[in-house]
């Protein structure tokens, strides 16, 4: 299913023609892989977590001042977790501004990656939410704790191998 979709993409990364942003990054010497463009033609870059911070900083310097959306993906039970970032160049009277998506795969047993809070403040709650739902730990985040789920919740609800506890199902309906 999804593992078919993304994992092979890393192997065939060379086959995907690198977009302008990828080329620029390469020219600046930032290691990354290009994945398939997404359905709207936005470049998707795969970054190792060690290089997330430099690549993100480079993109910030490049002009991507707006972190649109940050979230997590679970590639399936036992598979890696992904943290994705959609970046945009926000400007006045923009016409089709440049966009780019970053994806960072982290192993399920060690889901750690650096926070982007210090680049884009908006990552604050979005990363907290991803942490809350997927258990991806963003190192360096100022206040990483559960945000939507109760503080004492056990488990990461959005992971595909999460087993829904049966205690709340239709609590008082009958």
């Amino acid at each position, binding site marked *: *299913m999804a593992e078919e*979709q993304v994992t092979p993409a890393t192997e065939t990364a060379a086959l995907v023609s690198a977009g302008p942003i990828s080329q620029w990054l390469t020219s600046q010497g930032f290691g990354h892989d290009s994945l398939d463009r997404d359905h709207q033609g936005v470049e998707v870059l795969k970054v190792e977590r060690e290089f997330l911070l430099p690549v993100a900083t480079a993109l910030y310097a490049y002009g991507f001042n707006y972190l*649109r959306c940050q979230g997590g993906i679970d590639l399936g039970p036992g598979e890696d977790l992904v943290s994705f970032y959609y970046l945009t160049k926000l400007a006045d009277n*923009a*016409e089709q501004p440049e966009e780019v998506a970053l994806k960072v795969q982290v192993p399920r047993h060690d889901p750690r990656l650096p926070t982007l809070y210090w680049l884009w*403040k*908006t990552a604050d709650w979005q990363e907290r939410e991803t942490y809350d739902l997927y258990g991806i730990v963003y190192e360096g985040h100022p206040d990483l704790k559960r945000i939507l789920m109760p503080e004492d919740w056990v488990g990461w*609800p959005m992971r595909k191998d999460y087993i829904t506890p049966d205690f709340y199902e239709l609590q008082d309906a009958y």
Partner: protein
Amino acid sequence: MTLIETRTEPMVINMGPHHPSMHGVLRLIVTLDGENVIDCEPVLGYLHRSMEKIAENRTVVQYLPYVTRWDYLATMFTEAITVNAPEKLADVAVPRRARYIRVIMLELSRIASHLLWLGPFLADVGAQTPFFYIFREREMVYDLFEAATGMRMMHNYFRVGGVAADLPYGWVDKCEDFCTYFLPKVDEYEKLITNNPIFRKRVQGVGTLSREDAINWGMSGPMLRASGVNWDLRRVDHYEVYDDFDWAVQWHTDGDCFARYLVRIGEMRESCKIIQQALKGLPGGPYENLEAKRMGGGPKSEWNTFDYQFTGKKSAPNFKIPKGEHYVRVEAPKGELGIYVLGDDSPFPWRWKIRPPGFINLQVLPQLVRGMKVADIMAILGSIDVIMGEVDR
């Protein structure tokens, strides 16, 4: 200047979840020094229903009734984004008439949402009366919704490939009536509110967010535009048929609560203008005319072609979301409402990430209220325009 020393014990006070002005079930843990706010921590999740998890277990048809519960005041937008995501991923063509109907509905919904922002915002700074005035107009919008969709709030009207039903007959006329009725009412609100010295004093210079901060904090919608960014997704993304109409992006450079107020008031006017234009340009005209033309034109009439349908092709109950991923967004009244959808060629999406504008906009609240007065918390929170349904999802 020297200040009076204020090293007194801070008072930690809970505002919410059961508080008259918390816009739902938000909880703020506010640390006060007298009347001054030292710190504020929002606590969310009281309305969390795990909408993303639900989405992973529902077909689009099944999921559509849920989405109006995100932002239950701008319901059309949640439906629009929910059908846009699979629709664009599957490259489903949408008839032109359906797009026009969508725009009309979206803009009506924007008016309704802004109205129900205006009332509580004014109530937050202490004026109760506008709350009743806005309900008068909002009820009319909802009457129109009810006639077209069958429900006042939870419409379930948008479909993959169009909308659920054509506009009922007489609807276009009444919608025009509403627009002509509504614009003077906005002037009346402005007369009542805009220049009121107390209101001005309460909101001007309060909760100021600079352009850089607004972008960095990921603000969107009126929050962003009030901070001096001319950024409206209707213009940026050219989605639906907004390019057909003559309208202006509302933006201000002050970045305070008053600028947000002006932006939203302006947007109501613009929305009204868009609706008027869309009603005029509706392909095929109002339902009754179109139907008459169809009846007159016979089965092979040009009025039966694709662009004059209200829906391209009725989606199957088990409509499959094709393999692929993308991030779609619409300009909701509160800001950028986005969906990241990852399909794997099954009726259920593999990942359905919602980017609610309220959630992102709310996180700047502690930043804005620090150092302000207790009363400013309400003004600022009101000006952010959060709906806990979409913040907690």
